[in-house]
């Protein structure tokens, strides 16, 4: 074989594998969308899943409160430190409140909040559903005439979609509050200036933009994590792989969609 033909065959193998991965990705995207939409259409069908939705809100939402508060607090604190250091060079320390608030509401709150919820709640959704598959609990539900898409997938998708905006709102409040403590109490920024600039510079457009992001992220996390669990290979290794994939795909998805949404809301 000549050098040229070796290179050509290596390229053919590379592109062949790339194509197969792309096809698999598109296939999964289609399958996941169909599965999620199929589950969502069952929202209007009896029996209502209200009780299960509340239980999921408690497990996924309330269960993520602590991690959200801690992450929000330290994000606000570090933003205040970094922001003060930068703004002080231009004599604009009074803009600290606006800088912290805008960064958190528009960007860091939705994205970091989503990451935390993926790690805390998303991974547990995938693992729980995967284990139900391994132990044939989903089949048992089927045989007891209970649709697992309606009972298992639907309440989780709806719960995460609603929990993310609520948790991120908390993240924003805690982040801005902790930024205030560091900026005003530790670094000596004027409290009136911090709050005044915060209120003056942040518009409803910023808040709506952040809110839309959180709803989209929540829906995405719900769809991806339930899909990965439901379609996981019914083995312990399969569930572990599905959980890792769910976290990776949801996190990368959040970043990609964040860019697209930011470009719309700027």
């Amino acid at each position: 074989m000549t050098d040229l033909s070796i290179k050509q065959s290596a390229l053919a193998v590379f592109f062949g594998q790339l194509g197969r991965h792309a096809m698999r990705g598109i296939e999964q995207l289609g399958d996941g969308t169909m599965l999620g939409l199929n589950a969502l259409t069952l929202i209007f069908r009896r029996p209502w899943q209200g009780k299960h939705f509340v239980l999921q809100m408690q497990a996924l939402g309330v269960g993520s409160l602590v991690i959200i508060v801690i992450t929000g607090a330290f994000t606000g604190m570090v933003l205040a430190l970094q922001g003060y250091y930068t703004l002080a060079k231009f004599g604009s320390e009074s803009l600290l409140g606006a800088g912290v608030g805008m960064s958190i509401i528009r960007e860091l709150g939705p994205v970091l909040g989503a990451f935390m919820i993926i790690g805390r709640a998303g991974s547990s959704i995938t693992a729980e559903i995967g284990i139900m598959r391994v132990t044939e609990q989903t089949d048992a539900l089927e045989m007891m005439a209970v649709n697992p898409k309606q009972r298992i997938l639907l309440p989780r998708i709806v719960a995460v979609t609603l929990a993310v905006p609520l948790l991120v709102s908390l993240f924003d409040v805690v982040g801005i509050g902790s930024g205030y403590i560091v900026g005003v109490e530790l670094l000596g920024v004027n409290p009136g200036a911090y709050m005044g600039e915060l209120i003056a510079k942040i518009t409803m457009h910023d808040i709506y933009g952040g809110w839309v992001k959180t709803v989209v992220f929540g829906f995405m996390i719900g769809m991806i994590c339930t899909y990965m669990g439901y379609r996981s290979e019914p083995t312990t290794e399969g569930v572990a792989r599905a959980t890792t994939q769910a976290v990776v795909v949801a996190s990368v998805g959040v970043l990609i969609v964040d860019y697209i949404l930011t470009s719309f809301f700027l």
Partner: protein
Amino acid sequence: MIRGEQLSKSYDNVTALAPTDIHVREGKITAIMGGSGSGKTTLLRLLAGLDKPGSGHVWYGDEDLCAITDRRLYELRQSMGMLFQYSALLNSLNVYDNVAFPLHEHTDLDETVIHTMVSMKLEQVGLRGFEEMMPSELSGGMAKRVAFARAMSMDPKIVFFDEPTSGLDPISSGVISTLIQNTAQKNHMTSIVVTHDVQAGLAIADHVILLWQGRIIAKGPPDAIRESDDARVQQFLEGRPDGPIPFSRSTTSYIDDLTHRPGTVRLES
């Protein structure tokens, strides 16, 4: 009552079940037996509508399970029960809630009535008093008995049993076999039992189907199966390692594998 017509199933181009016709008699116990990988569970899952066949039809009376809507399938399943190989209890619910689950889902019965019904089912399997225990706290035999009680909670017309005695001690195994037999007789229930436990299968079944490599190699009443002159049937019943059914599934020669591996020293004669 249940009829499989030219049912087949393949996974990744490997045939799990070759086109098969099967007729399950109403009110009788049909045992589907065969070695590991012979297609028993595949056939059971197709008959229960848990998997779609590659080809063929499953008839429940005059309804084709492969052609009906999901809603109709769930309606039909309210008259079915299934005992899974590993029990498949809902691990977030205790014993009481597991057994009461189908009743809570599909009836408007008062909780006191449900409580009485659950107590009756648990008494039947000898586990009354264990209502508060979680599935993780139960032994394998207890979990199977709870799963049995759950499968029976709606007094189904058809019950599927997937390896009901596997992994159980002889006493628990005997208890489950007796429960299947007694319940089927008392309730005139159609039972389909998948098992590789020859003694249990032949003891409780009215009709036996023996599978090998995804095909039916014998069917009939237990006595006819016992007296079959098919060497494969006799090998399976007697559990002999030697015979037409090979124990080894290796696809290549062992000697070739050992002597032709890279780095292997060859001894020249």
